[in-house]
């Protein structure tokens, strides 16, 4: 009988000790906020274009952390989806066409002699990449432009174009080697031989 009681007491004592340790740890090593949101936000392209249906990349990151689909980001494209799938350990799915298609990287360009200086595009730009003042010509700081095209719609005179970024020797990429035909030397002509035999 005493052994049983001793065992129970020991187990109880252990439970109390570990409970205290865990309780202390949960207070001492508390993490503020949701760290996964930061990680997801780090993978999103930060164009702040809103094509996902959320008002910016961070809100979408929060939505993903709460279980939204990972394939709503056209500017990020498949590579972002793959990275998100890798991070969240979910299936990589193709881009949801409802939110747009993956396009070549673009930058906004203002046809400057048509600009009337209304500052509407400046207010629309999420990254302050448009320079100008009221009644003064505006221009896009190309290096800062994320290509979100949010400035195109507000322009009353339609003088903003989205132009694909030109490939120069500075941003040229080596192409992937052509896919190998995958033939095995001994397989060459085998199909034809069988056909001939059939005749």
């Amino acid at each position, binding site marked *: 009988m005493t052994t049983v009681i001793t065992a129970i007491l020991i187990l109880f004592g252990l439970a109390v000790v570990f409970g205290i340790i865990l309780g202390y740890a949960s207070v001492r090593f508390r993490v503020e906020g949701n760290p996964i949101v930061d990680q997801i*936000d*780090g993978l*999103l*392209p*930060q*164009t*702040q274009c809103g094509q996902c249906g959320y008002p*910016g*990349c961070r809100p979408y990151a929060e939505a993903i952390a709460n279980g939204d689909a990972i394939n709503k980001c056209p500017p990020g494209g498949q*590579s972002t989806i793959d990275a998100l799938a890798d991070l969240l350990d979910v299936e990589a799915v193709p881009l949801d066409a409802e939110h747009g298609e993956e396009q070549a990287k673009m930058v906004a360009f203002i046809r400057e002699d*048509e600009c*009337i200086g209304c500052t509407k595009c400046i207010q629309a730009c*999420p*990254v*302050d*990449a448009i320079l100008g003042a009221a009644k003064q010509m505006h221009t896009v700081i190309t290096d*800062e432009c*994320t290509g979100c095209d949010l400035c195109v719609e507000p*322009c*009353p*005179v*339609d*003088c903003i174009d989205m132009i694909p970024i030109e*490939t*120069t*020797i*500075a*941003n*040229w*990429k*080596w*192409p*992937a*080697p*052509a896919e*190998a*035909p*995958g*033939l*095995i*030397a001994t397989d060459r002509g085998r199909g034809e031989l069988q056909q001939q035999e059939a005749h």
Partner: protein
Amino acid sequence: MGKVFAFHGGIHPPENKKQSTRTPIRPVPLPKRLYLPLQQHIGMASSPVVDVGQQVLKGQLIAEPVSRISAGLHAPTSGTVVSIGPHPVPHASGLDSDCICIESDGRDQWIEHQGLGDYTRLEPAELIDHIRQCGIAGMGGAGFPTDVKLHLGDDHIVNTLIINAAECEPYITADDMLMRERADEILGGIRIISHLLKPSHVIIGVEDNKPQAIHALEAALKGCELNIDIRVVPTKYPSGGERQLIKLLTGLEVPSGGIPADIGIVCQNPGTVRAVYRAVTFGEPLISRIVTVTGDAVAQPQNLEALIGTPFGDLLDAAHVYENKLYRLVMGGPMMGVTVEHDQIPVIKTSNCIIAASIDEMPPAPPEQPCIRCGMCEQVCPAELLPQQLYWFAKGREFDKAKQHNLFDCIECGACAYVCPSSIPLVQYYRFAKSEIRTEEAEQRKSDHARARFEARQARLEREKAEKEERRKARAEEAARSQKVRKSAESSGVATEPTQDISALKTAAAVARTKLKKAQKALDAARDSGDGDIPALEAAVQAAHTSAEQAQQALEKAEGVKPTAANIDTKQLKTAAAVARTKLKKAQKALDAARDSGEGDLSALEAALKAAQASADQAQQAFEQAESGAAAGTTGPDLKQLKTAAAVARTKLKKARDALKNAEDKGLEGLDKLRATVTTLEQKAEEADKAYKDAEASAGATEAPVNQPVPVDLKALKQQVSIMRTKIKKAETALAGLEGEARSQAEQALEELRQRHAEADKAFKSAEQAQLDAAAAQGVDLKQLKIDAAMARAAVTKLERSLAKSEANDERASLEAELAAARDKAENLNTTLKQHEPA
């Protein structure tokens, strides 16, 4: 000779070096045109300092370095700058890039230049700056600006200077020939660099397949004061790789991701060393280099001294190319070079070799076959990597893993691909993976930057909002405080208040009156009952009376001030008159009642009635006066008011008539009175009507000239037109339901309406035209017009876009209508714009 170590792997491809070393270095005949890419080196592209059409002399600076890691560019010969723009450049992409094109004038006239003399007396920084000004960049392959490397002595301890003369790649003999013929110049360069870097030891690493070069160097080194060691290394590809040569000569390994200077070593190419010598001794910038032109498709493989910017075609001509045999033009060596499509690509500072290969020499690559995991690539890799693993990762786009397997330590020497039995283009896979990773990293940087900017913007907007809120609060507080101050001032003394509040005064007067009444009542009660302090009460009544009078006076004064100062408030006066009339009526009634009952103080009542009558008359008079004064006093008669007055008069008349009729029907009393009222009202209505008409006429007369210059109210006109249109439509629909006489009547009415519509439309159009003409006459605000036109155009395109997007039918119809309207507008505006635009 010191010990020679070994590096891992390496291969022994056929050397093919003998062909091009049979003849001495020859200069290329002066080409007609030279193309100088602005980017010939690692770092920022240089920025042109010459203009198209400008004459330049040989050695003149034509583009200056723009940042720390950049190199200038000099005219290789005298001539004219004919263009600055895109031209094919020696790059794997085959893309065009900005080049300065110089048309030579054939004189090859040097700009004034001279060497530095005794450079040992100069400050090192000054000497290095001179080298930078001469545009010297590494001539071995990467093109790293040399001045940056020479500054390495500032923050690193450099104990060994290695001259990389291994030249391990097949076919290339440019350094070999240079050493054979210009060993003394190379030695001169070594002296200068040693002076700057102060190494304890200089090693010249040469492969053992260049005995003549070794011989020449040894001859030149005889009697040299420097600790220079020529070390012959066995021929093995790629012993000329910087890290491999360091391993061979010193046994040390450069850490991954580090530079040789981290272990106290600086490497220089013999060509660069010679360029430094010529720059310091003669003041000659880097404008030419030795290029090996070889391959089966040239008759005389040889080394040529070519000006930077010479098109490959000129080099091939100088070496007598067999056009029909030429299958492939390779820039660089057979292992690391790239095939180029264009023979107008110019020689740059890093071009060491051009191979014009025949089809037998460099056949097309055999098809790629599956990897059999034989491991031969691993055995030859000089960087001790796992080429096979890297290949799988690159193929599967697992770039993170490739990076973890040290992909970036790959020197792309091509040894693995050379030995691969499955002919897999391994280096292509590595290059692809590297550039993908670089792009990804660049995008990551860019997105981080965008995030920072976005967050900064958000924070700014937030801050601005908060500031606005703060300001609003501050204003509200200020207002509350001033209100408080005013209130306290008011309570402290009415008289001191500069702006007298009439309503407050009124209240005060009323209060005083009430008090007086109460006092009076109390007095009366006291008198009736016969007790109480009657004299005291009388005094109180007296006091209340005075205070009430004072209050009344103050009020009257205030009221009297106001109307004279401001516009006379006719409305108020009217109310006063009405009140007076009501009072009069009441008094009359009271008098009548008193008479009927025979009670009360009739005389007092009569007096009161008279007073009321007088005050009512006064009020009425004041009102009428004010009204007429207002009518006359205003700058132009207020037509609207007059119209209203006339209408009111008419209504009153009508009412009065109705009342009269009613009374007549019922035979009621007071008919005469009513009749009189009706007649007066009739008169009044007529008067009002007349006044209105007069005013209208005069307004029309005065308005007409006023209207001309001022833009007509187009909007109102337009509205009118559209109202007409709507009326017509309504009438038409109504007409459809009618028959017989009613129909003909309605038709008539419709016709009339139509006419009116046409008139209104015409008026609108003419007004519009007039406005446009007037604008034209005054010099139209072209800018505004342009803006309008642009906006109209934009509206059209936007509508078109939404039309293309929309699917619902009814939506489409309305959109189409809108679009048509927008098009019309845009068209109109465009034509006007064209009319007014200066031809």
